């Protein structure tokens, strides 16, 4: 049950998280996964990221460019778009509001 709640919560915030991450710096699939682990989202199934990235690209929130990586390899780097930046602002605002409410009620409970 608790796992299900965690998974639902993560699913809801993942797009916002990726927008914030990509606004910091463009990144590619595996690089994004590593960053997610650094920020404590290491247990998110990595397979869920690909449909999300495709969906965000289709919606115009991010775009990609094939760039040379180490040696002869090329990587698909994702960049945030202007529409993505606007969506990120909306998400950040909503998230701050929700987290304030949650912190407030949880704070009362712990008092």
């Amino acid at each position: 049950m608790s796992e299900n709640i965690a998974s639902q919560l993560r699913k809801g915030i993942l797009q916002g998280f990726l927008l914030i991450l990509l606004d910091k710096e463009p990144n590619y699939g595996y690089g994004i996964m590593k960053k997610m682990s650094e920020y404590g989202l290491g247990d998110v199934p990595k397979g869920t990221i690909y449909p999300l990235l495709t969906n965000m690209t289709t919606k115009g929130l991010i775009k990609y460019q094939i760039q040379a990586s180490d040696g002869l390899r090329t990587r698909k780097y994702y960049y945030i778009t202007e529409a993505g930046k606007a969506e990120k602002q909306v998400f950040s605002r909503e998230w701050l509001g929700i987290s304030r409410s949650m912190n407030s009620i949880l704070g009362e409970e712990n008092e």
Partner: protein
Amino acid sequence: MNSSQKLIEKNNSLRKKLNLKNEVFYSDFLIYMRLGSITKKETVVENILLEILEDILDAQRENIDANKYFGKSPKMVADDILKSIPNSITDTVKLAMTGLFSFAIMTLLPVLANPNAKIDLGNMIFAGIYTCLASMLILKQVARSIYVINRFMSNKVVRYVTYFVLASAILAPVYLILFFVKTPLTFSLNGLTGVMVSVLIMAGFIVWWLRSNDRKFNFPMLFAALVFGILSLIIRIPNVQDTVFRSQFGKNSYAIIIMVALVSFYVVSHIVHKKQSD
């Protein structure tokens, strides 16, 4: 070479770097995605497939299995990805037209070799549309089999026999349409019209083959077009036609020549495809 072909070639060469376990995992995923994306833009799908392959290779370098790296059913991931790619009307129409055209040409070629045969364009169109729809259904079933049916039918022989019976049942109506449906759009290709159509088809195939990206793979099609095209030209020479169709021996010999032509087409296809898979 167009961009999706370049992506496919890059995928083919990078895939060799996968270890055996990851190769099995990724190949299933790749086939499922390709079969399930016939209405999607090919470059978009190939781009995603290559991206995932690169990431699996990165994970492999850190000793993480593809299965563990995905952390979720590959079928579910593939379904979610396919859902998030919009359908491409242009690509779907292009594919349907290619299918219909190939069907029409492959039906027309053996008929051309018989100067007395009548060609029913209407029934050819009906059968072509049915074949395209049936092929889509078969592709869907094959894709489904990768993650669902294979689990229940572990015996390879049983699986292949089931596929063969299913595909035959789905494709059988094509022959019923070709033999029993008659439309007024019927014409004969004897004399000069037949010669002109044969020359046009052969010229068309030569141009198509010279411009194709994979000449080796497409060679059997060119071979069939040239063999049947040349046969249809020879049989339309008045003296030859009279000699062949005057006696039963001539008719039988010509039937054998057509059979040999058909068999040699299958042999050439088999050799080419075997060489490619090696």
